[in-house]
């Protein structure tokens, strides 16, 4: 959709830039002294003549004016180095010619001593060529479903572990990061394994790590009857430890997997999706359905639900609670790692990715109903949608604010969550 278009405009911009550089070079060869602005105005490949451009200095005083020549070129000598504002007089543009971006009518540019700076006033049809709100919305919904599925997968373990043991696992985000980083080591850094194989290996290791934490640390601590708060502190400690050990080995930079990095998009009507993202969405959906079927049908799945519902009753009816908890830790960590590999593939891998995701996972599980697997799924999808759809209207840098806002709202209106059972949580 917008892909071909944006590619075309990138090519056009590069061409203009190269052209200006070339002109700037030759201009400098002609009269290589002093600071100046220069440029060439073109519309659809043709030079545009008779357009007035003026420059004011920092105090607002006009220091120069120029009118583009028959070849579209213009040049304004400046009194010295400094910051200037160059304005193109749109009233002097020929009929039917406009600035491509009306907000770039005035450019503020700093010139260093002895340099001539090329300025680009891109002419073209106005920016309404960009995707309209409907198209943006469609794309945002698609992205929302994509991230929502990934968040849901990451959050199932968080929710079930809470349901089984009452533990809020602040280290759950680090399981996501662990999966993504291990897959990067297997794929891009050391072994060069195909991403699918690397991902499977990473998930296995992360699952084992989750099980190891439960078996060797949390189970003995549960036997000592530590309070909920002490367990929270333990997981905060684990999260600080894991995150900074990964920082030590992985470093602070963002990295990408080798496979599936650049792909042409498939378009279905208003939706554009790379084959990689499509595969990730399909796989996520399959995995989530498999988890649901497992919880509904399998013996162990039923045991998990029984313990989540009432641990004492489950134990007294012969369910080995410790074993169920261990299984949930292994499976939850593995699912988080799958989410991490997917997330790393869609975006990039870095040492803080899981921690950033943690608050969104909290939002997902609370919204859906803390302690339930299906709640995490529904909540994850909703949080993903809210986050991405907000970017249609709001700045993307505050998209997490909307997710966290939904979390706070959910706690006010329906604190047990969408799918949670009404119990005393106050």
């Amino acid at each position, binding site marked *: 959709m917008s892909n071909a278009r944006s590619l075309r405009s990138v090519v056009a911009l590069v061409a203009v830039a190269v052209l200006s550089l070339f002109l700037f070079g030759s201009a400098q060869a002609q009269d290589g002294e002093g600071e100046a602005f220069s440029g060439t105005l073109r519309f659809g490949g043709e030079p545009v003549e008779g357009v007035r451009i003026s420059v004011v200095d920092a105090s607002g005083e006009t220091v120069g004016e120029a009118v583009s020549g028959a070849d579209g070129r213009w040049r304004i000598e400046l009194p010295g180095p400094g910051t200037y504002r160059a304005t193109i007089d749109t009233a002097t543009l020929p009929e039917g010619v406009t600035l491509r971006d009306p907000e770039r009518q005035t450019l503020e540019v700093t010139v260093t001593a002895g340099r001539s700076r090329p300025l680009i006033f891109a002419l073209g049809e106005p920016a309404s060529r960009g995707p309209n709100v409907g198209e943006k919305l469609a794309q945002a919904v698609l992205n929302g479903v994509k991230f929502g599925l990934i968040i849901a997968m990451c959050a199932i373990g968080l929710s079930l572990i809470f349901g089984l043991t009452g533990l809020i696992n602040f280290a759950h985000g680090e399981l996501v990061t662990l999966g993504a980083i291990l897959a990067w080591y297997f794929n891009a850094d050391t072994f060069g394994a195909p991403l699918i194989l690397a991902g499977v290996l990473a998930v296995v290791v992360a699952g084992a790590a989750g099980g190891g934490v439960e078996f060797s640390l949390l189970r003995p601590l549960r036997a000592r009857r530590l309070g909920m708060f002490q367990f929270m502190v333990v997981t905060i400690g684990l999260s600080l430890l894991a995150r900074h050990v990964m920082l030590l080995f992985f470093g602070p930079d963002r990295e990408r997997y080798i496979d599936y990095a650049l792909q042409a998009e498939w378009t279905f009507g208003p939706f554009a999706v790379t084959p990689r993202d499509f595969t990730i969405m399909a796989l996520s959906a399959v995995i989530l359905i498999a988890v649901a079927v497992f919880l509904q049908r399998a013996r162990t799945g039923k045991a998990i639900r029984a313990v989540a519902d009432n641990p004492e009753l489950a134990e007294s009816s012969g369910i080995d609670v410790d074993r169920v908890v261990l299984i949930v830790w292994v499976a939850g960590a593995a699912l988080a790692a799958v989410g991490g590999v997917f997330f790393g593939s869609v975006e990039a891998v870095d040492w803080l990715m899981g921690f950033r995701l943690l608050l969104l996972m909290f939002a997902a599980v*609370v919204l859906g109903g803390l302690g339930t697997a299906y709640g995490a799924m529904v909540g994850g999808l909703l949080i993903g949608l809210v986050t991405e759809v907000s970017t249609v209207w709001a700045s993307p840098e505050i998209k997490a604010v909307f997710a966290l806002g939904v979390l706070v709202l959910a706690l006010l209106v329906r604190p047990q969550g969408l799918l949670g059972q009404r119990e005393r949580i106050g």
Partner: protein
Amino acid sequence: MDFDIIFGNAARAGLGPQAAIFALAAIGLNLHFGYAGLLNFGQVGFMMLGAYGTAIVVATWGGSLWLGIPFGLGLCVAFALALGIPTLRLRSDYFAITTIAAAEILRLLIRSSPATDITGGPFGLQAIANSFFDLNFLPDGRFGWGTFSYSSNQLWVMIVAWILVVLCSALVLALIRSPWGRVVRAIREDEDAVLSLGKNTVAYKLQALVIGGVIGGLAGVIDALQQSGVGSENFEPQVTFFAWAALILGGLATTVGPVVGAVLFWFLREGVESFIRELSEQGWLPNALADFLDGAEGAISIALMGIGLVALMALRPQGIFGRRRNLHLGT
């Protein structure tokens, strides 16, 4: 390996303004959780509002610092009310998640580009503390010796910060020994019992949240003053965890716990970092290991802090001064 340097750096950090700032934040948390049973994981939000409120009045609106500080603390009161009125009825684990989310919402909003005109966005605000340093009556020049050598202004910040720590500790102690404190502690032990005595428990909890939040806001004000500026990167969720670490180390529900914990926290953290720096400068380490350690002291000390927290919970969950019977607070 020069242990004098390591010990000197550690002690300097333990006495420095950062330790006082974390002591204030931890005193607030102690009132919240140690005495009132409120599991506040958004203390950094109060610090941020104190710091930014002050800085916005001075740097953005050109007002006086002495208006800015009350404004910042007023924002903390407003945040505590906005946060507390809807959420204090929730169970403590839900309260923890809400507070951490609320603090992060604030940080993302403050650093976003639409807010740049007021908060400076990602660049923060600078040059706010001139009137504070104008009050400095200490003569110019340096004070102390060796590692413990401070400029007049550094010493001024430290004196003010530690005086505030003492005052806030005394305030909390007085509150806790008052009839109000007895009700608050009783709510922590058994809210239903207090309700049945006809006390409005939500109002008491809200008051505790406001007071502890304002003390946290004071920590933010000192932070803004000592740097003479604010930046959103100083208020990530991690800061709350560190304040908690200081409090737990010292001991919950004790008067000296948060203060000693904060001093010890910075002493240990800087001590470890200094030790690793010294270690990596020694010639006798293998090159690969020395390269690995170079510049990694920050991450290593925080990772060790993580181990320390787990070990503390496993071995002495009540901290240094805490009492074991206070272990099952707020659950």
